[in-house]
């Protein structure tokens, strides 16, 4: 118990109190810092056991001949038969290989198959004998048979089983009506694969490069007890690289596969996926800090990139974005004149150049993107789409005709369904203001996040939806068959027997010229009948470390291709 006069002053001023308290606080701050330092140390010990980056290797490691890169996200599915997303596609592209693969300039080249023959009723692939799995065993035709059967097996329930539907009986097997052995693929011997077609498929060689067609070894799969694809050691690799380390959601390490047959592919000894994030800013900062070898740039970052004197490049990612219209009878957009009005009152060029301002986007004149090939040259060079001319006066006339046909006094509001990505919001707002200004229409923006948007698209709960379509394989048909009456991805339920006829011709005809003519017809029909209103083709500006060469970006299969990349340090 303190008594006055115990040696301490008994009465003190406010000033003294404050000073004393201040000193106490300073002391407290010191204790706190000490405690935090100790805590940090303890936590770092704990962190080490959680699987960490450790010390990142930096963007380019010349000594170890390796680079450091990022992935958008943790790959959700590395079982090639079931993979359906872009990130998994990128990983699988580097660690696995199908019958055919892609060369440095994106051309189709022999993969596991050394040569092949395409016929009207089927195809034969002769496999090379020195293609091996990462455990040394040879890749055989049986591996392909097993894998393809598995992909259409209803028990596997693969999202992408439809891509095998050109193979005989695939659809029936997939719906459970036929057993697996009825699938039209067989191994005549260890190194010869026979495929029977359901219908003539002249572009089958382009199809087999896709991930769902990759091989799989039955004995290995069985040994994983249902955990195939869950971890690095739960997979077998036949591509230029293998996954040697995988810390989920954090990092991966791809090392050169010693058993890979192609010495002209896979020049880097290792590729370190040191970060997994989709935040563009974070990637830019990592690149500036020289921690990763390449990154994409969004439009607001370009001035800074130019200031840094970086070499900026761009590539077309392959997806076409468009306003998908609802063609069901009860919708306003089901009326031809109404759709025509919508088409003529807008110009994708203004959307891209003024509103979106992305240097790497191209205004889309057609359903088909620029990179699709025709007979000998690019499809759009051989069959140029009719140029779009914005004509507001004509649009208004069509609107008036629609109004009379529908017997309306005024148009009710339209619902524009869109996702939550910032770009799609800008596009949606742009169109809302544009149609209000030019046509006096009221557009209501229905912003939904992913699954809710898909659910609405599935049941057709929209008038217009901001949609996009990316290519599955390198042939015009991947875009061309979108609006047939049987395609489930035809969310607007556009139904035109002439379109169906054109697509069937394009699907089955063996003469490339006839096919391309059919596609040209589809291209024109999409415009004439306003099936959709194309907006833009997506591309990305990107920047890469100047010491990295041979790094390719692709529109099909994988967005990034490091399999031909190498480090080139300029001599002093």
């Amino acid at each position, binding site marked *: 118990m303190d008594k006055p006069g115990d040696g301490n002053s008994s009465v003190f001023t406010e000033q003294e109190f404050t000073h004393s308290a201040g000193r106490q606080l300073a002391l407290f701050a010191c204790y706190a810092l000490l405690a935090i330092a100790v805590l940090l140390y303890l936590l770092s010990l704990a962190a080490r056991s959680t699987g960490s980056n450790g010390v990142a290797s930096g963007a380019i490691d010349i000594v170890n001949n390796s680079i450091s890169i990022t992935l958008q996200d943790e790959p959700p599915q590395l079982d090639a038969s079931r993979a359906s997303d872009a990130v998994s596609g990128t990983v699988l592209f580097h660690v696995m290989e199908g019958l055919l693969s892609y060369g440095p300039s994106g051309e189709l080249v022999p993969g596991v198959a050394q040569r092949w023959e395409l016929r009207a009723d089927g195809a034969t692939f002769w496999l090379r004998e020195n293609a091996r799995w990462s455990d040394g065993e040879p890749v055989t035709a049986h591996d392909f048979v097993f894998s393809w059967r598995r992909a259409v097996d209803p028990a596997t329930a693969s999202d992408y089983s439809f891509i095998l539907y050109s193979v005989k009986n695939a659809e029936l097997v997939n719906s459970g009506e036929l057993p697996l052995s009825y699938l039209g693929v067989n191994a005549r011997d260890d190194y010869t694969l026979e495929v029977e077609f359901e219908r003539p498929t002249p572009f089958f060689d382009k199809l087999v490069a896709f991930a769902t067609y990759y091989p799989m070894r039955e004995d290995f799969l069985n040994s994983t007890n249902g955990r195939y694809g869950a971890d690095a050691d739960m997979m077998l690799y036949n591509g230029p690289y293998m996954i040697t380390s995988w810390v989920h959601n954090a990092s991966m390490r791809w090392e050169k596969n010693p058993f890979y047959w192609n010495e002209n592919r896979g020049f880097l000894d290792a590729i370190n996926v040191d970060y997994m994030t989709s935040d563009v800013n974070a990637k830019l900062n990592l690149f500036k800090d020289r921690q990763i070898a390449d990154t994409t740039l969004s439009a*607001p970052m370009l001035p800074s990139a130019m200031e840094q004197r970086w070499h900026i490049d761009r590539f077309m990612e392959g997806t076409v974005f468009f306003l998908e219209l609802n063609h069901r009878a009860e919708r306003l957009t089901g009326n031809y004149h109404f759709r025509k009005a919508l088409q003529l009152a807008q110009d994708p*060029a203004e959307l891209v150049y003024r509103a979106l301002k992305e240097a790497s986007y191209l205004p889309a004149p057609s359903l088909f993107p620029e990179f699709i090939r025709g007979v000998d040259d690019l499809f759009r060079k051989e069959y140029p789409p009719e140029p779009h001319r914005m004509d507001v006066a004509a649009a208004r006339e069509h609107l008036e005709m629609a109004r009379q046909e529908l017997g309306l006094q005024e148009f009710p509001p339209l619902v524009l369904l869109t996702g939550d990505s910032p770009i799609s919001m800008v596009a949606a707002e742009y169109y809302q203001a544009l149609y209000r200004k030019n046509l006096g229409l009221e557009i209501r923006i229905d*912003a939904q996040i992913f699954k809710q948007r898909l659910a609405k698209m599935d049941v057709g709960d929209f008038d217009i939806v901001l949609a996009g379509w990316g290519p599955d394989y390198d042939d015009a048909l991947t875009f061309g068959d979108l609006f047939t009456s049987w395609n489930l991805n035809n969310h607007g339920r556009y139904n035109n027997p002439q379109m169906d006829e054109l697509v069937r011709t394009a699907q089955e005809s063996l003469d490339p010229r006839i096919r391309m003519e059919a596609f040209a017809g589809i291209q024109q029909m999409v415009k004439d009948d306003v099936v959709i209103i194309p907006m833009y083709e997506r591309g990305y500006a990107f920047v890469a470390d100047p010491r990295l060469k041979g790094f390719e970006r692709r529109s099909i299969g994988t967005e990034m291709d490091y399999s031909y990349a190498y480090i080139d340090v300029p001599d002093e």
Partner: protein
Amino acid sequence: MHQFSAADFAPLEPHESLHGISRPSLSYWQDAWIRLKANKRALVSLFIVGLLLTFTLLGPLMWPVDPGAQDLEQISQPPGMDRSALIVPDYQPWDGSSERSDVSDLYLAETATTQAVRLKWDALSGAAGHRVYRNIFPVGPEQAFGVPLAEFFDNNTLYFEDRLDLRPERYYYTVVALNSDRSLSGVFVTLAVNVLRVTSLTDAQERGLVDGNTNLAVGDQIDLALHPLGTDYLGRDMLARLMAGARVSLFIGIGAPFLFVLFGMAYGSIAGFLGGHIDQVMMRFADFVVALPFLLFMIMFKIAFGIGPGESGVFPMLVALVILMWPATARLVRGQILQIREQGYIAASQLLGAKTNYLILRHMIPNTLGVVLVTITFAIPNAIFIEAFLSFIGMGVAPPTPSWGSMSNEGIKTMLTHPHELVLPALFISITVLAFNLLGDGLRDALDARMRNTE
């Protein structure tokens, strides 16, 4: 020693001033009100709040610009930019022809304007094709050409029209020769271009930049629309959007916190005071509400309230926010009550016969006000940002109606290049927070009887 006599003990005369009133007898609330009026900071804050209300309610009348109107000629303009523009004919697609020719290896086919920059060039030596770049800095020895705009892999296309996000600035265009494998050769040519701001005749008339009398012709110079605080990424007037956004943000940003704090206070004080089983059950219910996944339940509310696309979901969102955010306040208040109810004066009041309501309202709650006011201050920006976040799932306001929170979100993208798009709404949010912060301080000072002599 004083000699006392009987006269010393005579009673005094009644003295008026003995029983004077030094100051009027005030009830607690009257006392608080007087002190509030005298508190400088509270007055300042009330003044700021007044200004905000004027801005919100009267602003649109004084600045009647449509917050949704897109002025695509003036996208992302910072405030105070030059607005003069030349009138030109409407845009016509270009076929590559030009009246000028062979001025130099790379030249402009006509004057460079914000409508289009038309370049022509002579085929570079050894080129299998050409690629066009644009930079905002001159090309130096590092050969950093800038942003690639187009590529022509043939020798016939020797012209290019640039229409991408053209601003009245200086650009440096470069045409680089391509090798047959599409790689860049070392051969290139650069041109510096000054872009002129223009607008087309039709656009000028549509936007009402001229009145009906004046005859406007190609070649005239006019001023584009005035945007005192600049424009956003779609060319919409920032001032108008801030005013329109104020309505939503203030309503939600102040309404929601007040409501859920009120509810939380009531809940927490009842729980804290009553204690025992009731307290436990009530608090566990509060824990339950906190643990629910926020986004999921917001989506559920949206559907439950039947908000259609494009309809304003402001009121349902208010309800949803209140429902999901009261537990924090409740817990805080309960904590305070637990402390306070053990105080002596509570026991004393009870002995004097005070009822529960009286105790809670008159004694306990005023003592929790300090903590509560802090919570409100922080809840305001939180509510504003949550509202912005929810617009992604279609709750809150539908585009093009703005709100300060969604404007901040959109401004993040161009934070480094056009900071005004983020700074302005964030500034308004700061001002609001500051105002209520000061008000809260003043209120607490006014309501806390013990502070009477410390101002």
